[in-house]
Structures are given as C-alpha cells and as structure tokens.
C-alpha cells in the first residue's frame, strides 16, 4: 500500500498551515531542504538542514517532529508536537495523534539492530523476534534487487516495524482500521519505514516476505522519484518487485495478473490507471483491490517489456525532476515517447490478445460448487486430525480434496493424515502434479518439502521449507521441518523459530 504522496502533502500543508497561522513568510530554506530530505528518506541530510534552521520557528518544530517520526523516535516527536507554538495547527494535531499511537504501540518493544546489513527491526511482540534473521535476509535481498531494477539504494538502516495486528497497523500509519480490514492490508510503507503485521496475526500465516519486499519497493520509489510516482506506477512496480528478489515459486503470478485484469475490467471491478484514488487500501472491497493490483501489475510489466532498457529506473528519474499536473505524461514521453493515455490504450489492446482464462477456483467472486461442503469437510478433517483420528481424517479430507482439488492447504492436511496412517505413497501422489495446485500456503510447502526429502532431493526440500517459512513461520509443522519435539532443525535460526512456533502451537 502506498500513501507516500499524502505524506509529502502533509509535510507541505503542515508547513503552510504553520506559516499562515503565524502570519509570517516561511523564508527558511533550511526547513524546506529538511522536508525534501525527509521525503527522500535521507534523515542525515534532514537533520543537518534542521540544525541550520531557527529552532524556535514552528515550521522547524513540525519538521523536526516529522524527522523524529521517520527516525522512529516517537517520544521525541510527541514532546516536540506538544509545543505551545504548534497549538491550533491541524497538521501538528494530526501528527501528534499518529506519533502518540506509535509511541504506545512501540513502548518497550524489542529492537533487533543489524548494523552490518543495514536493518533495524522493531517487534511489538517479542515472540516475533525469532523471525528477525529471516526478515533481515529478505531486506538484504530486496534492497539489492531494487538497486539493480530501479537504480535506488535504500537507506541504512532500513526501519521495519513488525506489529501484532491490524489495529496497530492502522494506528501507526494513520489509516482507518475499517479500510485496512476491508482490503486485507497487512503492511504499509509510510513515514520512511515499513510497518508490517506479524504473520502470527493470521491463523495460517501469509506471504510476509513478498509483502515486505513489496513495501520496500514503495520506499525505493519514494526515494527515487522524490515521491512523484503516481499510484498506478507505485503499485505496479511494487507488485513486480515483490517476487524478483527471490527465485520463482510455483504460485507466482497465479492467477495471472493479465487474465485477472482483463476479467476484472470486463466485470466492472477495475479502475482507470489514473483513477485509483489515494490508496488501494481505500478501495471499496478486497475484490476491487485485487483487480486493481492485477491491472497495475499487468500494465507495468507490459510497459517494461515494451520499452526495455531499465525503463522503470529511467521513468523514476524522469519523474524526480518534474512537477505540475502533466509531470507523469512528460516523464513517460521522455522515457518512451508516449503519454499515459497512449500506453493505457496500447495495454488494453494487448490485454485482449492474451490468454485470459482464470481457473474457476481462483476467479474473483466465483464460488465453487459444493465449496461450502468441502470447507466443512476440511474443518471436520482438521478436528479429526487434531484428535489423532487420522484414518477418519484422511477419509474426510479426501472428500474435501475432491470438492476443492486445486487447494494446496487441503492437500497438505490430507497428505499429513495419509503419512500418519502409513500411506506416504498416497501422500506423495498429491504433489506429483504441481500444476494442478493453485494455492499454496505454509503447510503446503512444508508437505512438499517432506515429499522432496522422501525422494532424497535435499536442495528442493530446503527451498520448499524456506518458502513455507515465508508464509507460515509460526506453524510448528512448517518451522520445525516436520520434526517432532524435542527434535529441532540444525540451523540455529531455524531452531529458534521452531521453538517459538512450538510454544505458539502449544498455547493454542
């Protein structure tokens, strides 16, 4: 999700409000320079600029508070924003409200600082801390990919706030909780940092690693374009970059973005590229958000493919130097020789020529026949498995699998029950044809890893295990590499995560 342009607007508006409120000209190049540096995530430059500014000036105080928020020093921001000279300034009140919420959420939180790799992680829930090495690895890989793809080097340290729930995510980003819930948003790049919900918050986890890379792409674009990239480009590039930092996985681009965009546009769920609104998080439903994501993903891929030669990096650079209502068209014209309208028309024409079949089970708004019954069978199967009644569980999960044959999670649960009743061969058959599987999840990858191990393919098993951790790190079946307690993975980081996952599982 990206709302950095709002951030820039807030900075500008805040300064204007302060100036208007005090009836004096801004006239402080130092404050302006600081604001610009904050937008570009250059906190050191911002601090230098503010050191030259008049400390008593309300505009300086507000900008200082913004810098404190960007640095994650919310206590200092709160203190600064309570200055009497900022009383009555709406922007200061808004920022104070946000900084107060951030201060509450991060009070006495656990900080893991990896100076060598330029990452500072703050965990609201200390039980999430075993995830730190995995997150750091993602940040490192994504940083390198973004530098290569977009020509933008992200700041060091890059700050990531790992929060426990959507309540805190909304509070720390200033978004309405209802909007965040409605669209299923789990991370936001704003205020110079990534705020991401712990995978612990979602019962079966979620793709936190790709999400983190996605949000880092937003930060890179903010920095590279001086926050002048339009929303469609922001989200399109972020979707493109969210998987490029790692090796491909079976479910990347599934369902295909091009097909979903075509289908969604045909059903009226799409939006014009320049009419998405302030944020995808603010779209009316999750279906609208999914279609819009597919649109921008498909468009950006198409643009990059057509223009080639580091087109996206050049576009960001072109945007950086332009302002005004036509700055996007100007930049596009400079890089590609055509405007957005031209490109949109070309893309839609191209889209019509692509295969646009979306598997029924992945189509938006389509319910599978007997889906409800299969889901109940899945629930009953889980209940049976939890009671150790694997033979019955295998039968019931088999029924669920028949109803939803492409669901990876059902396959994983079924495979576990089959293995438990001594039918590993039958379990392996469930993973023999991966193209029949449309959805994965942590348990699916863990089951896949077990199959690879049984087949003696350690490298594939390790890769599948890591994919599982990137989805459901606190599922003991996933984190412990299928080992039963007290056995643990050999790798210390994996062992630590396994321990945390077991503790979490035991408590449930």
């Amino acid at each position, binding site marked *: 999700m990206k709302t950095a342009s709002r951030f820039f607007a807030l900075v500008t508006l805040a300064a204007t409000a302060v100036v208007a409120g005090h009836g004096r000209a801004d006239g402080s190049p130092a404050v302006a320079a600081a604001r610009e540096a904050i937008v570009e995530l250059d906190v050191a430059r911002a601090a230098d600029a503010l050191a030259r500014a008049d400390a008593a000036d309300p505009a300086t105080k507000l900008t200082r508070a913004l810098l404190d928020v960007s640095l994650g020093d919310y206590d200092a921001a709160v203190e600064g924003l309570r200055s009497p000279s900022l009383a009555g300034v709406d922007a200061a009140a808004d920022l104070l409200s946000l900084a107060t919420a951030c201060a*509450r*959420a991060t*009070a*006495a*939180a656990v900080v893991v600082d990896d100076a060598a790799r330029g990452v500072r992680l703050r965990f*609201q*829930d*200390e*039980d999430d801390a075993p995830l730190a090495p995995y997150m750091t690895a993602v940040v490192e890989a994504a940083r390198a990919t973004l530098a290569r793809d977009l020509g933008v080097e992200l700041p060091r340290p890059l700050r990531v706030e790992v929060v*426990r*729930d*959507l*309540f*805190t995510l909304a*509070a720390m980003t200033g978004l309405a*909780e209802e909007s965040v*819930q*409605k*669209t*299923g*948003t*789990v991370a936001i790049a704003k205020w110079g940092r990534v705020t991401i*919900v*712990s995978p*612990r*918050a*979602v*019962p*079966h986890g*979620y*793709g936190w690693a790709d999400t983190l890379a996605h949000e880092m792409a937003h930060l890179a674009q903010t920095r590279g374009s001086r926050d002048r990239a339009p929303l469609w480009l922001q989200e399109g590039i972020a979707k493109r970059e969210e998987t490029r930092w790692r090796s491909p996985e079976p*479910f990347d681009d599934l*369902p295909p973005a091009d097909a979903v965009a075509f289908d969604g546009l045909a059903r009226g769920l799409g939006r014009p590229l320049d009419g998405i609104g302030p944020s995808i998080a603010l779209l009316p*439903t*999750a279906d609208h958000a*999914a279609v819009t994501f597919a649109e921008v993903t498909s468009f950006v891929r198409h643009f990059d493919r057509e223009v080639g030669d580091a087109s996206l990096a050049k576009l960001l650079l072109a945007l950086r130097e332009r302002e005004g209502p036509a700055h996007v068209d100007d930049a596009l014209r400079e890089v590609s020789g055509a405007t957005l309208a031209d490109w949109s028309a070309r893309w839609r024409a191209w889209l019509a020529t692509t295969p646009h079949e979306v598997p029924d*089970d*992945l189509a*938006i708004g389509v*319910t599978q026949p007997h889906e*409800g*019954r299969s*889901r*109940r069978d*899945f*629930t*009953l199967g889980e*209940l*049976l498995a939890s009671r150790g*009644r694997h*033979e*019955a569980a295998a*039968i*019931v999960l088999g029924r669920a699998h028949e109803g939803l044959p492409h669901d990876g*999670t*059902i396959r994983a649960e079924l495979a576990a029950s089959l293995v438990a009743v001594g039918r590993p061969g039958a379990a392996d058959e469930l993973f023999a044809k991966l193209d029949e599987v*449309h*959805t994965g999840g942590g348990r699916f990858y863990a089951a896949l890893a077990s199959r690879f191990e049984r087949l003696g393919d350690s490298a594939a098993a390790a890769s599948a295990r890591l994919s599982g951790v990137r989805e459901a790190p606190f599922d003991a079946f996933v984190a412990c590499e299928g080992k039963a307690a007290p056995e643990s993975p050999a790798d210390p980081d994996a062992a630590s995560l396994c321990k945390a996952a077991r503790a979490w599982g035991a*408590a*449930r």
Partner: protein
Amino acid sequence: MSPDVAALERIARAWRGAVDRPASRARASLVLAVVVASALVARVGTPVARALAALQISVALVAWARQAWVERRAWDDPRVVVARAVAGSDPALAGRTLRAMTLAVEVEADPRLGSAALARLHLARSLAAIDVDRVAAHAALVARRWAIVSLGATLAAAAVLPFDPFRVVEGADVLVARGGVAPVPVEWLEIASLRVHPPEYLHERDFDLADTPNLRVPAGAVVTVRGRPLRASRALVLRHDDDETAFVDDAGGGVVARVTLLAPTTLRVGARFGGVVVPEVSSVAVDVIPDAAPVAAWKGAPKSVRLLETAEIPLEWEATDDHGLREVDLVLRAGAKEERRVLAQPDAGARADRGGYKLRAGDPFLKAAWLPVEVRVEARDDDAVLGPKWGKSEPVVIIPPAVGEAEAMRHEALARFRDALVDLAADRIVAKVSDDAAARREHALHEENATGTALAEADLVVGARFGRLRLPKSARALVRREKSALESSLRAERLATSAKTHDASRVVSERAALAIDAALGALASVDATAIAGRLGAVADDAADAVEAMHRGGAVDAGEGGEARLDASLGVLDAAGGFLSRIGALGHDLGEIVANDLKRARRARGGADLAHAELALRDLAARLRKPHASFSGGSRSKRDSPKGDQRKPEDDDDAADDANDIAREEAALQELARDHASESAETEKAREKLGRSRGGDADEGRRELDELGRREGKLADRAKKLREQGKQRGEGKSESERALERAESEMRAAAKAMREGDAEGAARHQAEAQRELEKAERGDDDGDSDEEGEAEHDSHGKNPHESPDDGGRSDDMAKRAKVPGTDDHKGPEEFRRRVMDGLGKPADARLREAVKRYAEGLLR
C-alpha cells in the same frame, strides 16, 4: 581624740539622735505605700499592669536600701556633719566652719600657703562657736517633719483597708502568678450543687455528681455548678482542663456555670484577673464514660470464599452498641470501589440487632469485580455529641473468579463434548457394517457404547455450573437437539443395523460435531469479546496506577502506586491466561495481553514508567476493540480455505443456527450485565440527589438525564434482541415476553429519569432488571444461566423480600419503618404478617403494588 573631733561628734549625736528614727520610719512607710499601690495595679492582671507594679516595687525597694546605705556612711564625713546639722540652724557659721576645714586641709598639704597651726586654730574656734543646743532644736524640728511624712505614707497604704483589704493579697497573688495561674489558692465559692445532665440521646435522668460512684459521667454530659460567691465582684470561672466557663448570675443571689464533658477532667473554680486566674482551694476530678463505637460482626468472619465454588454466600450478622444503633450497612469493597447497602435501621434506643444476608454470585457488584471483594457489616451509633461512629466487622473476603475463568471452564466443557462427538464421528467414518449377523450385533453394541460416551458428555455440559455461569440456554437447547438426533440415529441403527442406517448415524455425528464446534466458536468469540472489554478497564486501571507513580512518585494503595499496579497486573496475567483458552479469538487476544504485559514489565523493570504506562494504555485501547488481530478481506484467494468459513451453504446447517442463537444469548447476557451497571449508577445518582443542594442538585439532575438517555439505548437493544428472535420465527416464549416487559420498564425508567424522578426510575429499573434476568434464564424451563442477586432477611427469620426481588432489600429497609422485634407483640405479629406476605411469590407487577401498600401501612 582631738577637741575638733569631739565637737563634731557632739554635733552629730545631737542631730541624729533626733532625726534618724523618724526619717527611717517615713521611708519604710513610703515603701509600704508603694507596695500596696503596686499590688492594686497588679490585680488588673494584664501583663502591662503586672509589669508596672513589679517595676514600682523594685524601684522603691532599691531606693530604700540605697538610702540606708548612704545614711550609714555619710556621718563619717565632718563636712557632712556640719552641712546637715549646722547649716539648717546657722547657715553663716556653717559656711565659715566649712571654709576653715578647707583651709586647714590645704595648709596641711602645702605649708607655703600659710601656717598650719593658725589654720587649725581657726577651725577649732569655728567649731567651738557652734551651739549644740541650737543644733538639737533644729533637729527636733526636722524630726517632726519626717514623722508627718511617715504618718501620711502609712495612712495612704492603709486607706484600702476599710474597703477590701483582700484585694492587696489578690494583687500580690496575681503579681507573682506563673503561667497565668496564681500560686496561692483562694476560696471563692461555696458550692451549692453539682448536677449532671446526660446527653439527650441516652434518655437518662439528671443526677448529682456526688451521687455517682467514682464521679463518672457519660461523655457529652452537661455538668451544672451552682454556688454562692464568697467575695463579691470577682469574675468567677469554672476551669476544666485548659478551658474554662464563666459563672453567671443565677438571679437568686448565686452564680451558675455549665460545662459539657467529653473527656475525663478536673473541675476547679477560679477567679479571673485579666490574664491570671487565682484558683479555688479545692477541685473535683470527674471521669467520663466514652460512647463506644458499635460492634459489628459476621458469623464466622474473618474468612475467605471462592466465588467460583459457590452460587450464594449466606451471611449472618450481628451488631451491638452501648447506647443505641442507628443503622447497619453491608459494605462491599474491591480496590477503590465501594458500595454500601442498608441492612437495617433499628428503632431508637435499640442496642442490638441481627439478621441474615445472601450474596449471590450474580450480584452486580461481584460480577463487576476483578479484585477480591471485602464484605463487612458496618454499624453506626446515634452519638449526637461527637457525631455518629461506625463499627466495622472483620471481613468476609470473596475471591471472585479470575476474569475469564468461568468462561474458560465453560468453553472447555463444551469442547470436551465437541471432542466426544469428533471421536464418535471418527469411529463411524471408519467403521464398516458387515453382512455377518454377529458382527452387526457387535457393531451395534460398539455404537451404543460410543454414543453413550458422547451423550454422557452432553449431560455433563448441560447440567454443569461454572461459577455463576451455565451454558447459555440456546446452547443447551442445541446440545439437547444434537443429543436427541444422536439417540434417534442410534435407535434406528439398533433396530436395523445396516450400511444405510450406519451412514445416517455417521452423517448425524458429523453434523453434530460441526454444529457444536461452530457453537463453541461463536460462544468463544462472544465470551472473548466480553472478557476483553472487562480487561480493558483493568488495563486502564493499571495504566492509571503507573501514571500516579510516574507523576507523583506516590506509592499509595488508594490513588495509585505499586500495590494497585501489582493487583491489576495480577488480574491481567491470570485473565490473559484464561482468555487464551477460549477459542481462536481468545487465544489471539490472550497473546496480546501477555505480550503487552511483557512490554509493561520490561519498562517498569528498567524504571521507565512512562513507557510502562504507554504499553498498558496500548493494551487498554486494543482490548476496547476486541476483534481478531487479522480480520476482514484477504489479499487473494491464495489464502487457506479457512479464509471464509462462515459462507452459507445450500443445505440446512445447524452450525449457523448455533452461531445465531449463541450470539443472541450472549447479547442478552451482556444487556443484563450492562443494565445492572446502569441501575447501580442510578442508585448513586439518587443518593447524590438526596444529599445535594443547589449546584450539586443540578449536577445530579444532569447526571440523571444522561442516565435516562443511556437507559433508552438499552431499551433499544432489548427491542433489537426481541426482533431478532421474531425473525427466526420462534414462537413467543416466556423469555421473549420477559424481554418485552423489560423493554417497557426500561423506557418507563428513562422517562422518569428525564423528568428527574429518581425514585420512580429506580423502581422501573429494578423491575426491568428482574425481567431481563427472567428472559436470560427463560423461565419456561425453570433454570437459569446465571445466578441472581442478593437475598436479605432480617433477624434471621423474616425475609424482607422474596429472592426474586432483585436485592432491593435496602430500599425496603429505608422506606418502611418496621416495628422492632423487641417491641410489644401486636406490632411483632403485624410485622410478621406483612413481611411474610411480601416474601411470598407474586406477580412482579403486583408485588410492587403490594410493597407500596405495605409501606403506607407501616409508615
């Protein structure tokens, strides 16, 4: 001896023989006069007067002593002899003699000035010329003058004698007083009587102090001292401790003084002279019998009771006082919260009272408490002198279940039934029905046993109590329905054991397992939400405690501080643990509680109270929004199939019913709880209005108006719940009718509040609460999900109200003046009949009318 010396001696003798004595007498008389005058000045008693008197006397005495000393030495000087004795009678001769003396001395010192012999001769001739007789004659004249002075001074000093010579003594006594009290006591008053008037509230007769053993009087008694003054015009006072009361004329030639005695003292008459009192010779030491505080006691206290283990706590109380009881209260305290309920208002003069009280687990105060509740009986006496005093009993400490403990137990009990159903389903899923008759019989037997295990769990969960909780009525109905379905399918399979009947049994058990699982999830969700709401308040309380420590550095158990924080954290710890056991939402929220407590403790451990407070505020804010950490839309359909489990299916689904019913059940429970809290608020507002005046009364009315608005909203909730029941097409049950009546009463209460009628509002609220609780327990099957409130009987045998009366016994006690049991038999019989009548079950509406009627009769 030279002739000159001898001459001088003769002259001196002639003078002194006549003058010395009268002169000395005159000086003594003068000193006496000064002393007398000074004593009279000192009698004024002011510091200035006493200082002036002292100064006068001192000056006179010093002057007297100095003169005596001077006189003794002066006659050794020949020049003084000549000057004093001769100068008066022959001044020329005296002058010549003095010059001759001077010449003789000078020539003696310096012979060049002349002949020493001639000078001595000249002196001798001068001395010889002095006529001793003439000197003596003049001395006699001077002596007479001194005698006159002496007489005058003596007469002046004695002038006071004809009027009141004792004044000089008083003055002298006053003059030498120390600390405002003269050293020499004096008899001032001939005491005629010492009467004691006990305080009115004791209803005792007056008596003479002398008649009391050990001179003891009750505290607050008025002692009246009458007498005849021995000296007129003295400002007589009655002294007691550091205080005094002036005597006044009793219009009968005597004086009188009254003093109220609150503590042992010594009574002593005195006369006041300015700042000084001259005490009477004798005094009276009086002992005072204090009015002791009442003694109140619970039978068996102190003791602790775990609320989870008991549905009601019967308590027997007794209160006594040395003079009279005015009121006996039940006092409930939990942390900073306190609630008082009137147990009894004994008749005037009653020195003892006793009664019983039943505190039920469902009592609103206990339901809202998360800290141990101290229950005491407190009795107030009728001390009108020092003000009423309270006597407190030892406490009965009621340990409420940890927040969420009962709900966790209930959840686990229902989960056990769910698990039994899952096991039964598992058996049936894998079982195959053989064609062989013996195998079929064995199968049928196995089915019977397996089903029996599940049915036993069903009976357990339906009948079990978990503290004040039971399984909600609708959930019980669901359990019974599934049990009935299991029994039917089992009967069918026993009648005709076949693959077909077995498959039908399998389907029934699968459905039952899913239905109960769904009901479990729904109930867990509702319970977790409610618990989180309560814990939010605890987290806020903890944060307030940290804030108090942080801002004031206070370590105070009342306002804030370590003890309060530890108590709140302890509650959060325990409740977080129970919350974690209540389904997915409970586990999620429980984890958040645990984590935020870790944050708060980490900060507190590092003396970082500001961050500890922030972490607790964050927790409180989160618990006020007790939804799952992640809820709402999903980013893609790649999420697990558990992403949308609530999707309706085309076939009938017991789970959906279970969800709806459980939600409504919980909503009704919550409504009843909220309404009980509102009733308590109204009671407080009513008391405030009763006590207040002016601005306070306005505030009370505003508060009542706001409560009325909230009561209206509660009525809306009742209406919504009723309509939900209708939408499900359920017939009009007793529960629904009770809910309808509750809504009507709530609206009447809201109207009364808006009109400022606190009494009427309280009555309607009480009725609404009873109806809500009826709706909760669904009186059509005669059992309840939750325990009711308090039952109260006085004197151990006459209940003030029926158990259904919702604990309004306090009101009853306040409004109805019931004759005491110690009074004569007529009122006792009448009282018994009235109270028995009130105690009998009756229609709730009629009961109110009967109660009003009884109040009118008994008033």
